[in-house]
C-alpha cells in the first residue's frame, strides 16, 4: 500500500469518509478536519507508520503529509 493509500485510509476512518473521495491535493479543511482532528490523525499515522511528525502550519494538504512521511521513510 502506498503512503497516500495508507493515509487516505486513516483519514477515512478518523472522519468516517468515503476513501474514494480523498485526493492528494485536498486540504484538511476541504475534508472537514479541524486542528484537533489533524492532531488525532497525525497520532494515528505515527502509530501506524512508525514515524514522528511535527505538526506545523505548513501541513495543509494530504500531499504535504505524504511528502513528510516519505521523507522520513528514506
Amino acid at each position, binding site marked *: 500500500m502506498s503512503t497516500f493509500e495508507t493515509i487516505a485510509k486513516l483519514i477515512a476512518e478518523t472522519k468516517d469518509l468515503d476513501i474514494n473521495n480523498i485526493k492528494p491535493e485536498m486540504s484538511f479543511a476541504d475534508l472537514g478536519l479541524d486542528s*484537533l482532528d489533524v492532531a488525532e490523525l*497525525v497520532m494515528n499515522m505515527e502509530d501506524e507508520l512508525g514515524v514522528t511528525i511535527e*505538526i506545523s502550519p505548513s501541513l495543509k494538504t494530504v500531499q504535504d503529509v505524504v511528502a513528510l512521511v516519505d521523507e522520513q521513510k528514506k
Partner: protein
Amino acid sequence: MRKINNPIHKRKECERMKILSFGHALPKRTVTNAELTQFLDTTDEWIQSHTGIESRYIMTGRETLSGLGAKACKLALEHAGLKPENIDYILCSTTRGEMTFPSTACLIQEKLGATCPCLDVNAGCTGFLYALDVADAMLASGKVKRMLVVCAEQVSRLTDWTDRGTCVLFGDAAGAAVCEAGEGLKSIHLAAEGDAKPLHAWPSGGNSPFDDRIPEEQPLYMNGQEIFKFAVTHSCHDIETVMQDCGLTADAVDYFVLHQANRRILDAARSRLKQPAEKFPVNITTHGNTSSACIPVLLSEMAEDGRLQKGQTLVLSAFGAGLTTGAAVLQY
C-alpha cells in the same frame, strides 16, 4: 517530541499515604460562551465543538486566590472532622500564586488560622499529582502526620483576553485534600520533559533600569495541537503503567479522573482505553480547564454527589506545562 527516560516511579510496596477527604471552592461569577462572543470573534458552537466547554467560573475584583484556597481547605477539614490545628503542613499547587511572595500556601494558612509550615509547588496542570507525591514522601518520612494538599488556580488572571484560542479554555477554582499516612496511594508515575515552547506563561515584568528585555506581548501561549498529541500519548501510557504496577485491569477501576483540559482529549483517551463514558467523570463543561485544580475539584464534587465512595479504586492522570505528566492509582 523527546522521549522521557527517567520518570519517578513508585510501586505499590511503598504505599504510604491516603486521602481522608476533599473540599473545593469556585468563584461566584460564571461566564458563558455567549458572553465571550461579545468581545471575541468566536461562537458558542466553535467553543463547544472544539473543547466541550459551555461556561467557566472567573475571579472578579475582590476575590482572592488564597480566599478560594482557604475555603476549599476548610471544607476538606470539615469533611474529615478536623481543625486547622490538626494539620502539620500545607502544600499548595499553583501556576500563578496570588503574589510572587509570600507563597499562596502561607496566605491560605493565615486565613485558616493554622500554624504549620507552608510551601508552594508548581508543576503546571500536573500540580496535584506532583503535590501528592511530595506529600507521600513527607508522610512516609514520619516528619508530618497530616497534610493539606490544595490546588489553587486563577488562570483567568494570566490569559490574554484578546486571544480567542486560549482565553476561552480556562477557569478559576481551588480543590483541597486532607492527607494522612496510610494505604491509599498504590502507585504514582511522574515525568517531565523541559520544553517551554508549546505551553508557557510570562510573569509581569519589574522596572529595572538595567533590564533591556522586550516584554512578551502574549502572557500565555499554547500550541493546542502539540499539547493534544502530548496529552493523549502520555496520558494513555502513564495510565497503563500505573495500572500494570498494581496488576489492575481497566475494568477493575471505578473511575478514571483525568485532567480536564479538553473534552476531545478525554474522549480520545477514553476510546484508546476502551472504557464507558460514566467511568470518565467530567466537569470541563461548566468549569473549563482549571489547571492543577481540575482533579481535586472534580473528586470533591464526586464525593459531594455520592459518586465517589470510600474504598473505590481511582486512576488519576494529568499533563501540563513543563512539559510535565503524571498518573497514579489511588484507593479512596
